[in-house]
């Protein structure tokens, strides 16, 4: 017999889905801003592996000469990004959901086993509650990253008025670099996230919209 198993509370589902387009807009408008001083590369021993960003990329996304527009969007949606993030964090604290989300002392070892399982090297996974160890680490890290984006963003935005924040980020140049790297991090997170969601299947995906999973109740099978 099928049973409904509650999984994701409403606030967590909504903050998740609200964050998705906001973060997309922040990354897009950030690209418009970054273009005006696109100096970052991945260079190791004098060999340039990646340039952020190649011409074809900028052309494909219509990025050039839109700095003013990018700033206008960025400084509007930063409010929504921050508010939505705070709402999520406050909710997880007061609802007790943080218990499922924060990594514990076993998580780092267990996450390794989860990784081996996902790569089809190991057959079994460690027992888990709502999230497995790898998820705990990933979903906590992404919140820390979001907070980092907010802090480094403010450090670049008001480096004189919020000089202590800029100092905390290791200076203006470092704050801009961290702000950029975190954004690259979101993109990588997104790619892995999407692959995992597809692999996890429909029941899991639906639970992030409707809040519950449908399980086969074993008791009923026996009776």
């Amino acid at each position, binding site marked *: 017999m099928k049973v409904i198993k509650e999984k994701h509370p409403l606030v967590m589902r909504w903050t998740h889905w609200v964050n998705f387009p906001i973060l997309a807009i922040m990354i897009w408008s950030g690209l418009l801003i970054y273009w005006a001083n696109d*100096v970052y590369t991945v260079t190791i021993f004098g060999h340039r592996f990646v340039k952020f960003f190649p011409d074809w990329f900028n052309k494909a996304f219509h990025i050039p000469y839109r700095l003013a527009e990018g700033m206008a969007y960025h*400084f509007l949606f930063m409010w929504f990004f921050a508010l939505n993030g705070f709402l999520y964090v406050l909710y997880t604290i007061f609802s007790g959901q943080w218990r499922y989300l924060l990594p514990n002392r076993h998580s780092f070892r267990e996450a390794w086993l989860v990784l081996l399982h996902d790569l089809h090297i190991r057959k079994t996974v460690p027992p888990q509650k709502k999230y497995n160890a790898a998820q705990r680490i990933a979903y906590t890290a992404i919140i820390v990253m979001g907070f980092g984006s907010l802090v480094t963003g403010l450090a670049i935005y008001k480096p004189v008025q919020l000089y202590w924040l800029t100092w905390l980020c290791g200076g203006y140049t470092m704050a801009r670099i961290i702000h950029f790297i975190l954004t690259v991090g979101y993109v990588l997170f997104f790619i892995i996230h999407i692959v995992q969601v597809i692999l996890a299947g429909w029941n899991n995906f639906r639970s992030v919209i409707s809040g519950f999973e449908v399980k086969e109740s074993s008791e009923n099978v026996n009776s």
Partner: protein
Amino acid sequence: MKKKKKKPLTVEQKIKRRNLISFGTFFVLGGAGFGGWKWLTGSPKEAPGVTAGAQKPLRRALNSTELFFKKIFSNNHLVQTYPKSRAARRVRTNSFIGLRDPSFKLEEWRLSVLGDNGEVLSLCIDEIKALPKTEIVYDFKCVEGWDQIQHWAGVKMLDFIQHFKLEELARRNYVGLETPDGKYYVGLDRESAFHPQTILAYEMNDQPITDPHGAPLRLIIPVKYGIKNLKRIGSMRFSDTRPRDYWAEQGYDYYSGL
């Protein structure tokens, strides 16, 4: 008995009902969000005035954000300064708008301070250089995203106002500066213009400012992006309304404060 048979059905129905409600809400609100985005990206440009070039709602947002961040502005928040040895030898230039007038003659340059009924002061560079000199080595920040530690020297804006007894005019909310040819112009809020590190600079790296950097006198205002650091100041005026601003007319934030 009948009730018991219905039980598994109720679970199915429950699942169906909840799915319908949550997916329905998801798509309706998602659609509304997408509609809102389409509205925003397709919104009309603001009517050209002191600011121009931005879409109306985005300009409103920029102005509100400016009001919010003005609250944390303080004259006690000083920009970090560095030893002279850290200053760049080759100081970066980015724009020459307002410096291209072929008829401009450095020897004939004068700074014109304007009141409501025309000029109240006309100063040559030596009259300005006679005032106490203030030096600053700080990280100049461009709106494009680059920054460079630079060494400038000149007259502190506060000293300038005091020495030429412009306190009455300086009580107004804004200062407007323009190049002699009127091609480049900036508007500054009073608090930023009279920040203790704002200077009217005539020296760069201990040498008189060169033409590409805005000879003979330029603004160095560390609490603003480079776009507000007007080169070759021709005139200075005080007003209670926002003076025109070159980059604010191109869609940039009027405040552009750091």
